[in-house]
């Protein structure tokens, strides 16, 4: 029995694998596969899906920032996307990188963005068709967005500093990163590290994967409310900010807060711990306690 997406705040933000199988060839549907493993798409993907590489396609090659509206328009045009397209993202690792790509598209104001519930894993586990044929898109003319809407969906470190004690923060890293026992993610010991370990004062610890079931699909709304609203104490706040190490795991949590639970202003702090834990004079709490807002 397929899951009822109407339980979520924005039922339009998710599609099932069944839906994709039926609609993937629709004219206004564009499928984008976004993986951590840059070769996975080449080993086989959903027929018609294009590859999107979070590193080379979405990031500015020099400054630590995302592409600008002109670059976005050029990229979208190349893939044949128009502002009316239904853009469906999916990928490995319970849609980590798919959620990240979806979040970046959100910054440019594209309206119809969706994730495949369960991502690549669910599609392959169900034995659905994969191909190594790379589609050749017919280029479109995507108008250059007037702005990259960072203010609404993206938090900078100043925003986070100003939110301590005022708006809930959700730290989605592993418990050992949260307490400060380690300064990088398990398995990433020699990279993406920080000089200092710990977490941003007042942040609740909710490792990102708690939002997903074993099969990579999202948990039910009831389960998600119990985790974020109650346990993490986000409650009915107007604003909430999620962060991790470089902003990819927290994109997954941002998707939950924004689309599944419907917080008015959910933002992703993509600077995350690689910025905070390396910055001079920013407050840090070590250990399991969330900690207090520092006296100003």
């Amino acid at each position, binding site marked *: 029995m397929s899951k009822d997406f109407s339980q979520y705040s924005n039922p339009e933000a998710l599609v099932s694998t069944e839906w994709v199988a039926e609609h993937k060839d629709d004219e206004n549907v564009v499928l984008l596969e976004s993986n951590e493993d840059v070769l*996975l798409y080449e080993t086989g993907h959903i027929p018609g899906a294009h590859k999107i590489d*979070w590193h080379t396609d979405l990031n500015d090659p020099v400054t630590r920032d995302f592409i600008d509206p002109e670059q976005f328009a050029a990229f979208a045009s190349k893939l044949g996307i128009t502002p009316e397209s239904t853009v469906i993202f999916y990928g490995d690792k319970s849609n980590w990188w798919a959620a990240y790509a979806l979040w970046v598209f959100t910054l440019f104001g594209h309206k119809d963005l969706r994730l495949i519930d369960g991502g690549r894993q669910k599609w392959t586990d169900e034995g659905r068709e994969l191909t190594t044929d790379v589609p050749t898109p017919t280029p479109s003319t995507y108008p250059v967005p007037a702005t990259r809407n960072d203010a609404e969906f993206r938090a900078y470190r100043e925003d986070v500093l100003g939110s301590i004690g005022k708006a809930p923060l959700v730290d989605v890293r592993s418990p050992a990163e949260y307490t400060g026992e380690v300064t990088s993610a398990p398995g990433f010991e020699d990279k993406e590290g920080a000089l200092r370990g710990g977490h941003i004062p007042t942040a609740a610890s909710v490792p990102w994967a708690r939002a997903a079931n074993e099969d990579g699909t999202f948990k039910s709304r009831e389960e998600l409310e119990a985790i974020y609203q109650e346990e993490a104490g986000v409650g009915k706040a107007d604003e909430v900010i999620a962060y991790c190490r470089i902003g990819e795991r927290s994109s997954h949590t941002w998707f939950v807060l924004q689309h599944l639970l419907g917080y008015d202003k959910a933002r992703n702090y993509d600077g995350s711990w690689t910025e905070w834990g390396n910055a001079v004079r920013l407050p840090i709490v070590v250990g399991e306690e969330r900690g207090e807002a520092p006296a100003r």
Partner: protein
Amino acid sequence: MTSQSTAAQTGGAAGASAAQPSAAAAAPLAEIFEEFRAVPDQQRLKLLLDYANRLPELPEAYRENFHQMDEVLECQTPLFLATEFRDEDRTAEFFFAAPEEVPTTRGFASIIQHGLSGQSYDAILGAPMDIGEQLGMGRVIAPLRLRAVSAMFGRVRRSVEGHIS
């Protein structure tokens, strides 16, 4: 990158022979570097995929341990590494395994396997640490992820260092 190291010692430890000249012994790896640098960026990914597909099957003797491979936690990529040392000619052989879902890890493991397995201790320890850069993958793969291959190679080196020290 996590792995299990299984140091299976074969052959007698007595009478270690003289070290082979490292420049000659590291030739297979140098050839792989050449092969990658000779093609444009996007083809390097295809080449890496070729290597991923050519990662040799794990020998029967190790298959049982393979199931004890570390679980995927956070962004860890499970990788199995076993090393066999032959002290009589001071060479080491490597056996890698990684799941199909991580072709990049399989590709890099396969390059290390084809480039360094069976080579002399000196050649292995003398290989450059920045394998990813040597392959010219800098623009194709995020630098942060690229270090995974250095981490993998670091593990190979440490197993050899640990054995001869």
